[in-house]
């Protein structure tokens, strides 16, 4: 990267940052901010899915149980869950006003218990982390609550497939 393009990139980064700050201060996010929030949270969901895939393959018997790999995948889920990226849930980035998302506006409604459900996921993942490296039976038992926690949010806060 040449010096000038570094400066350009830096300036671009700054302007995006400034844009975000202005957007936030005025309460009306730009289209680009909404797009990047949606991409960000979909990337997080992909990371969940990839690691669940490793664990579920073992639970289903499609892949031989491997304690180290199972523990690593559960640790990854905990790490993804611990990311401080609340910004990807930008108000105004739901299906009512944005494209390419299935996030329902109910997420942002006052009185929504999404926080409680997110806490239930964190708890279920902690249980999975404790169990995944023990043995296959423990893994099988601990993955169910994680699935339930995923479903609890997707039931009310994600638009059904069409």
């Amino acid at each position: 990267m040449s010096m000038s393009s570094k400066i350009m990139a830096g300036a671009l980064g700054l302007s995006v940052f400034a844009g975000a700050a202005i957007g936030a201060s005025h309460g009306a996010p730009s289209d680009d901010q909404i797009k990047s929030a949606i991409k960000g949270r979909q990337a997080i969901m992909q990371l969940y899915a990839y690691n669940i895939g490793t664990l579920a393959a073992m639970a289903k018997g499609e892949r031989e149980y491997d304690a180290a790999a199972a523990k690593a995948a559960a640790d990854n889920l905990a790490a993804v869950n611990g990311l401080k990226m609340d910004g990807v849930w930008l108000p105004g980035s739901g299906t009512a006003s944005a494209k390419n998302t299935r996030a329902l506006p109910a997420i942002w409604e006052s009185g929504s218990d999404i926080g409680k459900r997110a806490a239930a996921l964190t708890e279920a993942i902690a249980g999975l982390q404790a169990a995944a490296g023990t043995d296959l039976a423990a893994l099988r038992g601990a993955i169910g609550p994680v699935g339930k926690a995923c479903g609890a949010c997707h039931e009310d806060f994600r638009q059904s497939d069409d």
Partner: protein
Amino acid sequence: MRRFLYALLALILVGGVGIWAVTRPSPLPADALAGLNGDPGRGARVFWAGGCASCHAAPEAVGDERLKLGGGLRLSSPFGTFVAPNISPDPENGIGGWSALDLANAMQRGLSPDGRHYYPAFPYTAYANASLQDIVDLKAFLDTLPPVATPSQSHEIGFPFNIRRLIGGWKVLNADKGFVLSTPADVQIARGRYLAEALGHCGECHTPRGPLGGLRRDAWLAGAPLPTGKGRTPNITPGGLDWSATDIAYYLETGFTPQFDSAGGEMASVVANMAHLPAEDRAAIAAYLKAVPAIE
């Protein structure tokens, strides 16, 4: 001319009597449950397989809250909005005062204890195939649940669908049709057929309906528009679902698809029920779904 009028009058009279006859509620015989005793443990399995909590628990309930069956879920349809009633054991607001026969008449015949027709939003065309032993067990289990004092709310149904007697005619066309899949030789598929068609009432959402709201048995489980408007339920015959039986059973246990997406919408609640069943029941449903006629 006068002769014609008499003929017309006679026709109306005969028609009226005919309609009165076919729309008449026909409950089970009073001794239908003789010799059957309810077991709450077995009833729990019927309860989760039947998906009762999905409509009769409070709409956002999770965990043990799903055993409080105060009702309140609103089901919109082209005929109006149905509100799920309280079926907790509260004697005043729920069904605590019901006998097992009352429950059997509700589930198999679509009739209230005072002999009125229920709307088929309550899936009695499926439950009609449930065994009386299972219904007696279910009643024993329901009686162990916490009473909820919330009164049931009225359905919001306009004329003419608010004339309950007309449901008798609908029943003639759509009820008591028996199982869709002809009796399978395989024991596991037979169990799966019972769970999916009688208790699980999968067809209520996954089968398209005709103009009068009856299920199109020739398109069984081929997917249908969601009654709420946007979106469709998927085709879950082998013509639309290429998952292995293991994948289907695992989805019903955890909600994870083979791509490790997770169940959402109404199906998340179905999975929450199915997760309570023994693994062999989920495997049986999977075997059944592999055996139904493929519809492209």
